[in-house]
């Protein structure tokens, strides 16, 4: 059995940690994009589409992320689509993220008073213009703390991808533990790395909040 120094452990975890960061960023960016589209659909108010979006949100909020990942990873091959662990993890986390972000943001949009919609409507703005210039800029400020809070959930959620064989931080931790028989050291390092990713996110949120002054209510 080869000898592992602490540096070896940290180095290998850092390599794998890049995948955790990349998966988090991709899932968050794509999930945010899909979430924004769903939010627009939900807010525009066509009853059938609203019901569809609501069902989507409830489906993903009401099942464990692990099951969602399993269904994507094992389900897609059944319809002839072979997906790599990376694609499955990205897709699963994107769906999960979009559902939660849509719901978080919907709450923020609904907290913008009726008067803002009416004033902008009376000035001749259409729905897209109202959203873009009036509602979203204000909702965004309110949305920052819960959104960043949720982004931390996404980072931690990527750990689930280890189960379908995607080598990110947690999976790497397990593999290194199997080689070193030093679980406490390895998982201690793993936990520290998650913390080092997540903590700056919280700091960033606080910074952003300060930047958006002048929003009433």
């Amino acid at each position, binding site marked *: 059995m080869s000898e592992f120094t602490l540096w070896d452990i940290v180095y290998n975890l850092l390599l794998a940690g890049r995948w955790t960061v990349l998966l988090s960023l991709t899932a968050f960016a794509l999930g945010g994009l899909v979430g924004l589209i769903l939010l627009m659909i939900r807010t525009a108010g066509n009853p059938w589409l609203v019901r569809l979006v609501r069902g989507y949100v409830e489906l993903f909020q009401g099942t464990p992320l692990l099951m969602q990942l399993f269904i994507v990873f094992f389900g897609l091959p059944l319809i002839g689509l072979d997906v790599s662990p990376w694609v499955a993890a990205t897709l699963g986390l994107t769906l999960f993220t979009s559902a939660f972000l849509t719901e978080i943001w919907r709450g923020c949009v609904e907290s913008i008073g009726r008067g803002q919609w*009416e*004033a*902008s409507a*009376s*000035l*001749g*703005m*259409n729905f897209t213009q109202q959203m873009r210039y009036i509602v979203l800029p204000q909702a965004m400020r309110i949305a920052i703390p819960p959104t960043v809070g949720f982004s931390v959930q996404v980072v931690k959620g990527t750990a689930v991808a280890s189960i379908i064989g995607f080598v990110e931080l947690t999976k790497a931790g397990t593999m290194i533990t199997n080689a070193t028989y030093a679980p406490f050291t390895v998982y201690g390092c793993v936990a520290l790395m998650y913390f080092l990713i997540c903590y700056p996110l919280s700091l960033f949120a606080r910074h952003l909040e300060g930047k958006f002054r*002048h*929003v009433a209510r």
Partner: protein
Amino acid sequence: MSLVELHAIHKSFGELEVLKGIDLAIDEGQVIALIGKSGSGKSTLLRTINGLEQIDSGVIMVGGNKISERDTDLLALRLQVGMVFQQFNLFPHYTALENVMLSPQVVKKQSKVEAKEIAEEMLAKVGLADKMMHYPDQLSGGQQQRVAIARALAMKPKVLLCDEVTSALDPELVNEVLAVVRKLAEEGMTLVMVTHEMRFAREVCDKLVFMHQGRIHETGDPEEVFSNPKTSELASFVGGLA
């Protein structure tokens, strides 16, 4: 032909019939005061003229064109009919200048330079040339309401609807807003205003419309109507204010 014509407008909220057949013509340059008890349907009537409430039946004509519920018609309507609200409803994330510039740029696709020029002109008109860079939360209620008026005017509407524009203000701030409205009236702006400022209505308006239980109960020249109300409801309404 009147600028705006309402024919047999009906509007209910669920079981509650709020407008029970309203006929009203608004002529160019006319200044109309809409008065009546709370809950008589004044706000709802103004909001239908601006398309903020869908009507159940009746016809709204603006400039001789019938307004349907199609979005393009609604937009055309709102380009001609501006509105000022009791609660100002300024956009809190924009400065006074940006509040006024936004719609001309976004809706009318005017250039930034053009929109800024108009906005500065309108803000000067309401006496706020020195507050353009202020955000709404840095302005008093009276100043906010004047920005709201400037914002509506920047769209160059043919009619301006004012729904109790001084009711949310501290008493000492009422006059600065009324002075602006008076100036607009003198310049020939067509105005429909819901107001409880009876003295102002009497001095400034050409026509008084008294609403009672969802109907136009009495209408006429303000001086005439105030001194000699024909219906007991208006008499008691006017009496109750004195």
